[in-house]
């Protein structure tokens, strides 16, 4: 990797290639693409054309009739998704979206402009599905689906994090995420996928979570956290697992089970629920809210999501709480009930602590943890000492999916403002519905794609750097497990000295628990106060 100050030295948003885009082939440069899905994972999921191959090979070992398969799939989807059909037809190429994509800003590659990313498919659409396109050919903006076009699709549809920022600015609401999702579905039909999507999907299908952790492995990890909590607070918490008849099922991203800093957020949930005396349970079967189906196909979303309602039914819970996770919430909010509902065996969620009815979740019966927690705080049910977090100067990254798919903007802020005293917003063009992506979502958070991640992450990191320099911000909060993993690398590269963490980590720091020891260490085992640190030395 080049040094941060050198990475974008040749990047310019206004200089376009001399060659027209239809005639430019994708260049699979190291660091800007992801490795293909391993055959075993495709086989496990029953997906098409499992084989060893590499994007840099000339021959991608496609089925002989790959064109026919793609065009048939294209037609089917035009008939099944109005969004897709409409978004193929009504773009006027006004360019309002052109500089809204983090990957365009960081790479200067015009095919990362949302309008052009969609044109990669529209050109084929015109050629094969519209009269005008058929009649006029190139003059009508049409081009044939050749192997180079297909390779281009692979390169650019796996260079889109489906964050939907462009959609906010489009006068017709054209959502490139919809186009990318369909694009990836079509690629899947001929066996083109990336391993960082398909392996978690396969793992999730088999074990219930992305990492492929079997049930006994999960309980080990959870117990480990329970021990850590006891060391830090002196409070021994009990951890209900697969408990039948519990009132609430808790589902969170498995990213939070195994890697820092997600684990601290996970410990935060445990401490909160223990302190409330909540009658709830973890599940080893539904041990994942995240859903890499979203990055594979609509069918895969449904296959992976099904376990949540199935487990709620098996355990006989009344309703469900979901943890801090980005695309998990996109799936839960936009797809779950439609795909795997109705959840009529559950009850409308009511907080057992405050009695608040979560009217906004009365159909899915699934409540976001920040909704649950902000209601607790509002009703004065938690004893909090925000001064414990005084060493943190905090900013908040609106994780794309909860922000732009669900509209969860103020709940997390309310929690943050009540658990710490130093909260600073990033500039307004980079937060809330205009938030910038971490550039590692939608399955792109792998290491071989690091250069592209750092490029795409610049807009987010740049805003963080701004508040770091202006307000000495040293902690970036987010409510997404992918963010916690990828923003950590991002900050390390672009905005050193800013650590990443979840909201419930800080909540748990501030939470005064019954029977706790005098707490001097935060969840990371570091002293609450800098002075104590120096005394320790």
């Amino acid at each position, binding site marked *: 990797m080049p040094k941060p100050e050198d990475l974008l030295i040749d990047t310019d948003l206004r200089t376009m290639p001399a060659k027209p885009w239809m005639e430019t082939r994708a260049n699979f440069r190291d660091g800007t693409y992801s490795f293909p899905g391993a055959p075993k994972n495709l086989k496990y999921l029953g997906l098409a054309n499992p084989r060893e191959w590499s994007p840099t090979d000339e021959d991608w070992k496609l089925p002989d009739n790959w064109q026919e398969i793609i065009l048939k799939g294209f037609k089917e989807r035009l008939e099944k998704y109005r969004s897709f059909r*409409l978004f193929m037809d009504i773009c006027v190429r006004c360019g309002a979206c052109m500089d809204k994509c983090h990957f365009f800003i960081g790479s200067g590659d015009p095919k990362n402009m949302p309008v052009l990313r969609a044109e990669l498919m529209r050109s084929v659409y015109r050629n094969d599905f519209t009269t005008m396109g058929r009649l006029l050919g190139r003059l009508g*903006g049409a081009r044939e689906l050749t192997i180079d076009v297909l390779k281009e699709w692979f390169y650019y549809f796996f260079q889109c994090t489906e964050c939907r920022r462009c959609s906010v*600015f489009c006068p017709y609401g054209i959502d490139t995420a919809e186009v990318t999702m369909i694009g990836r579905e079509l690629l899947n039909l001929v066996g083109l996928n990336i391993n960082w999507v398909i392996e978690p999907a396969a793992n999730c299908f088999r074990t219930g979570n992305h990492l492929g952790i079997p049930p006994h492995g999960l309980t080990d990890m959870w117990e480990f956290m329970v021990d850590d909590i006891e060391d830090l607070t002196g409070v021994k918490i009990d951890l209900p697992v697969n408990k039948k008849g519990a009132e609430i099922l808790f589902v969170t991203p498995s990213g939070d089970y195994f890697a820092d800093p997600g684990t601290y957020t996970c410990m935060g949930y445990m401490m909160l629920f223990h302190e409330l005396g909540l009658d709830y349970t973890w599940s080893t079967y539904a041990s994942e809210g995240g859903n890499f189906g979203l990055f594979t196909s609509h069918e895969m979303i449904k296959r992976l999501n099904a376990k949540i309602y199935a*487990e709620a039914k098996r355990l006989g819970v009344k309703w469900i709480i979901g943890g801090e996770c980005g695309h998990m919430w996109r799936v839960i909010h936009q797809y779950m009930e439609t795909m795997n509902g109705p959840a009529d065996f559950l009850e409308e969620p009511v907080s057992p602590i405050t009695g608040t009815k979560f009217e906004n979740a009365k159909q899915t019966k699934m409540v976001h943890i920040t909704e649950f927690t902000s209601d607790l705080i509002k009703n004065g049910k938690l004893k909090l000492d925000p001064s414990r977090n005084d060493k943190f100067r905090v900013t908040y990254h609106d994780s794309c999916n909860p922000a732009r798919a669900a509209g969860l903007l103020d709940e997390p802020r309310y929690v943050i403002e009540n658990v710490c005293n130093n909260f600073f917003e990033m500039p307004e063009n980079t937060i809330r519905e205009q938030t910038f992506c971490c550039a590692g979502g939608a399955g792109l958070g792998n290491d071989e794609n690091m250069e592209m991640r750092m490029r795409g992450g610049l807009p987010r990191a740049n805003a963080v750097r701004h508040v770091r320099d202006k307000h000495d911000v040293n902690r970036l909060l987010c409510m997404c497990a992918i963010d916690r993993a990828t923003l950590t690398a991002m900050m390390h590269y672009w905005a050193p000295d800013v650590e990443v963490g979840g909201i419930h980590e800080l909540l748990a720091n501030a939470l005064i628990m019954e029977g706790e020891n005098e707490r001097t260490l935060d969840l990371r085992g570091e002293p609450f106060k800098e002075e104590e640190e120096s005394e320790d030395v």
Partner: protein
Amino acid sequence: MNAWTSLFSALFIVIALVLISWLGVGVAGTSLFGIVIPYIAIAIFLLGVVARIVQWARVPVPFRIPTTCGQGKSLPWIKADNLESPYNTWGVIGRMALEVLLFRSLFRNTRAELWPGPNVTYASAKWLWLAGMLFHYGFLIIVLRHLRFFIEPVPSFVEAISSVDGFFQILLPTVFISDAIFLIGATYLFLRRVKIPQLRYISLPADYFPLFLLLGIAISGVLMRNVWKVDLLAVKQLALGLVTFHPAMPEAAIGPIFFVHLFLVSVLLVYLPFSKIMHFGGVFLSPTRNMANVNRMERYVNPWNYPVKVHTYEEYEDDFREKMKEAGIPVEKE
């Protein structure tokens, strides 16, 4: 397609259309351009627009996928934004009205710039929004003003629009403000497309063609009104004949510029249903904008939902039962 090829191919087509009508009206006769072509154009336009909208409307919307641009409805003490993240029909109507009437999303536009450092800055960029407003509202007023040719007696609101529109009597006859506004808007949109490198790069002939066509229509209209004046009474006679289905060419001669104007309008009507101009119909059907963000509140049904292969709990437990028992995790079957 080369950027300039896009521009010039569109320009040549529009120039050819002007020449066809200018010269053609002398060769083929006025009734072809005054009656036959307009009728065909209107028929294609009406059928085409209806067909397109029906075609879209028949495609199901399997999932509720609004883009939320503001706080969604949740707890009662959190202020929800019903216009940016609608939670009921009124919110959806409001959001769509803002979008359609005031171009809300374009109003949000920003310009990103990359500086050494590297550093990214964002500045408000409302020129596209402004030009869009001028262009569309100019066009709307012009269309409404034209109703005076098709309705007798002229409705009072049309009179009112015309008199306000012609308030500044700079020249005689009046130069309409709407004409100027429309021309400014369209010219800006054209220059923007040529001047901004990214936009030039993405532009297709289909982006330039409608702009040139509309500019041609507006310019021929202004010329006809202010330079090569035509007999407006004769024009009205022809228009009334067309709308009352008693088409006849008026006895008084109408200058060829009128037929250029009318022919370009006819071409626009024919082109419209098959082009990106259909965005005016499509915007109402756009699922990210016209659906309420009530996904967790209300049931939504996908008409083609189908069963899929899942990994059931029973299969899962079969895979891991012994280990689960060892770890003290409750199981269904001992």
